[in-house]
């Protein structure tokens, strides 16, 4: 292990892309900024709503703001020196290369399974050598032991892989944050490993 100063020094030279600034993306971004990441590239088209406040890293007075703008404000309050490239755009097959090709690691942080599939298939076929950290299944509460990782090469997915969100099984802050934290932890591990190889 390295000291926090050594970890921060290494992470300060790294760029991470995050697709989506909802429950996963906003919290994962906060964890990475707290850990000393140098640059984040974040894309999301949505605005902050009241229903987001049960799990996403936004505040009451930010309702109605573009998520990328609200998140920029919040992340800069943690570290004013982090470099943020915020894109208010709907991520699609066409703009993925443009948005994320300079990133050392990419995080999939979408809500809908269909968006997850589109993004994962596009990134893995367009950038087969770039590490991708995704998530699947984090609704409700309890049964912590159902949460785990699936790995294939440099593709990593965490979650319970079974519980989809619904009115009866809503997403809640603790479990969504657990998954966002697992994603951020994997990003740090990958970046530290890639640094050792150089």
């Amino acid at each position: 292990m390295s000291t926090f100063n050594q970890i921060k020094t290494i992470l300060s030279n790294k760029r991470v892309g995050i697709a989506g600034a909802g429950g996963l993306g906003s919290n994962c971004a906060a964890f990475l900024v707290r850990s000393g990441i140098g640059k984040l590239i974040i894309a999301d088209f949505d605005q902050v709503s009241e229903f987001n406040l049960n799990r996403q890293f936004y505040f009451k007075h930010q309702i109605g703001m573009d998520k990328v703008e609200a998140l920029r404000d919040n992340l800069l309050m943690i570290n004013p020196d982090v470099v943020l490239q915020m894109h208010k755009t709907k991520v699609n097959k066409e703009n993925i290369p443009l948005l994320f090709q300079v990133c050392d690691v990419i995080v999939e942080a979408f809500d809908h399974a269909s968006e997850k599939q589109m993004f994962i298939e596009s990134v893995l076929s367009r950038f087969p050598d770039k590490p991708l950290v995704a998530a699947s299944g984090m609704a409700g509460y309890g049964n912590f032991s159902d949460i785990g990782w699936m790995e294939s090469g440099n593709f990593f997915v965490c979650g319970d892989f079974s519980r989809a969100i619904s009115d009866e099984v809503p997403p809640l802050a603790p479990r969504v944050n657990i998954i966002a934290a697992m994603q951020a932890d994997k990003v740090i591990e990958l970046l530290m490993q890639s640094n050792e190889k150089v």
Partner: protein
Amino acid sequence: MKITLNNRVESFDKEQMTVAQIMDAKSFRFRMLVVRLNDNIVKKDKYGETMVKDGDDLKIIHLVSGG
């Protein structure tokens, strides 16, 4: 053939099968999946034509909504 499916060894009577046939045999009925064959992506529109053979490492990962 013997393959590794989601980190477990599985045996099938046939010598090779398509990804779609394996999904059917193992009852993967979720609509949203990510498939990796020997750590390479198999896109949705290729499930029916991508052949899996003895010794292959196949991962069929469920994607569920939430985030």
